[in-house]
């Protein structure tokens, strides 16, 4: 299972980095999302992989006394925090990318249309209520 998880994380991160280096905002956002999936899995796995064992050990329970018999709950709490933050950031970035497209007239990350390419839509200033 370790090898499989490592492979999954590796594929996610490499796809994420590849997409992150693209010149359009949409692939960049997808890339960041994939990267954060990979990172979230990595955090989760840092608590070691165990199946079918509880994360919380009650005081009198001696059958679960060794670390092999329970799963570390802390990375699960950490990954939850990371997921929430990552989700909010992605939402923010999506709105920003849309705004950049509206204001700059194209979806290039540098805000300049590529060679021999016409702007997708004309750049226009945002109206007061869109800010």
């Amino acid at each position, binding site marked *: 299972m370790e090898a499989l998880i490592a492979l999954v994380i590796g594929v996610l991160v490499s796809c994420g980095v590849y997409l992150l280096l693209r010149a359009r905002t949409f692939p960049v956002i997808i890339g*960041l999302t994939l990267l954060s999936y990979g990172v979230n899995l990595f955090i989760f796995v840092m608590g070691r992989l165990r199946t079918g064992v509880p994360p919380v050990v009650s005081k009198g329970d001696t059958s679960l006394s060794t670390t092999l018999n329970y799963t570390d709950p*802390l990375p699960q709490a*950490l990954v939850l925090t990371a997921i929430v933050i990552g989700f909010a950031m992605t939402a923010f970035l999506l709105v920003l990318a849309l705004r950049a497209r509206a204001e*700059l007239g194209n979806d290039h990350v540098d805000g300049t249309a590529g060679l021999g390419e016409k702007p997708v839509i004309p750049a226009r200033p945002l109206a007061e209520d869109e800010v």
Partner: protein
Amino acid sequence: MNHLLIAPLLLPLLTAVLLIFLSGRPLVLIRSISILATTLLLAVAIALLQIANDGQIRLYALGNWMPPFGIVLVLDRLSALMLVVTAVLALASLIYAARGTDGPGDKLHAMVQFLLLGVNGAFLTGDLFNLFVFFEVLLIASYALLLHGRGAERARAGLHYVVINLAGSALFLIAVSALYGITGTLNMADLAVKIAQLDPADAPIAATAAVLLLVVFGLKAAIAPLYFWLPRAYASASAPVAALFAIMTKVGVYTIVRTYTLIFGDSAGELANLALPWLWPLALITLALGLLGALAARELRIQIAYLVVVSVGTLLAGVALNTEAALAASFYYLIHSTWICGALLGSLFFIAAVSVIGLPPLSGFIGKLLLLSAAGTQGNAIWLWVLLLAGSLTTLMALSRSGSTFFWRGEGDVVSVENRINVDAGKPMAQKGELLAVIGLLLCILMITLGASAVLDYTQALAQQLLSPEAYIQAMHEFTAIEGN
């Protein structure tokens, strides 16, 4: 436990929430609440500075959960100093913004308070994952602040800034969780203990995590290959926001100092001082490239943004020397450079600020002089001499060039300095409040110049405290022993 320790977090948080609910009410109400809260924050920060000045390290367990599992806030000389520097800068920016640059809308004040929450949290926390959370708080507030108002340039610079910081956050998480995976703790003091007793087989993983952390903090601090986002972002932000951003690179420098003196310091066994060989050349390259950027800049605000990069390079050179004298000089220079860059970025071009930048009687001079005397003349230190001295001259040249093109640009009549500033800002009249804020910051700089010996005594003690991380670890153990029962 001293409950004052959590005030720098609660105060901006509650103010921000209040300001969001007050949205739509008269602007004067929102501005006065925001400025009042920041003044209070400054008072709290000064009180904490006095408390921390006795050399003890104080802890505050959030929710009374004991370390290493609970999250703690830690107040030592360094974090207290950073709180004061932040509060002074924030107060000046808010007074400046209250003269009309906080529009459109009334959300800027709430976002500034959220930013202060994040910055203060990053300075106070004693937990690595909590540091990540506070980083995200300050980052999302800074994204919103950077994009505040309209303009294609802002959207463009904002996109770069947000994407690069999100990528940085991903790296931060990888580093933090790798450290957790091998040590089983996230508390900084406990990490220091565990790293010192690390199994040699795990050392490469810890070293990887440590270098990844350096990349992340370097990105925040804008060190050599990672500073390209900074000039554009700072130059396109509105004036009070850009002034406030002068503290953001210092957060990066702070975390570098904290991490590499405490966790990966002298006592870290195999990983002792592993960042130092990287920091020294990177600092010098940052310094050199920042200077070239300042010389080549064709716009004043880009030039000043490069001066921020220069100040980061100078600071890191002092950190990389890793001696008490160099650290003391660095932190003196940090106070000076944060406020001066704030004043410069905020006021576009203020003649008094320009004359301060490197000229003898003022604090920039004292900082650089101390740094050079701490560096000595042995070995590699010679490069610092060359760069720092050539750098001062270059800065002077760059600023006098832009000063002369700015003030003697043929536009007919002789206009007073004050009006010129506001012509550039697109405003018809001199705004007294804005000048007040900038003059306030300059007065603070004058104060640290005149009171240099007192400030230096403090930074000297601070450096001493930083270089003996045992005290920090000891404080954590004693705290757990006393409060845990």
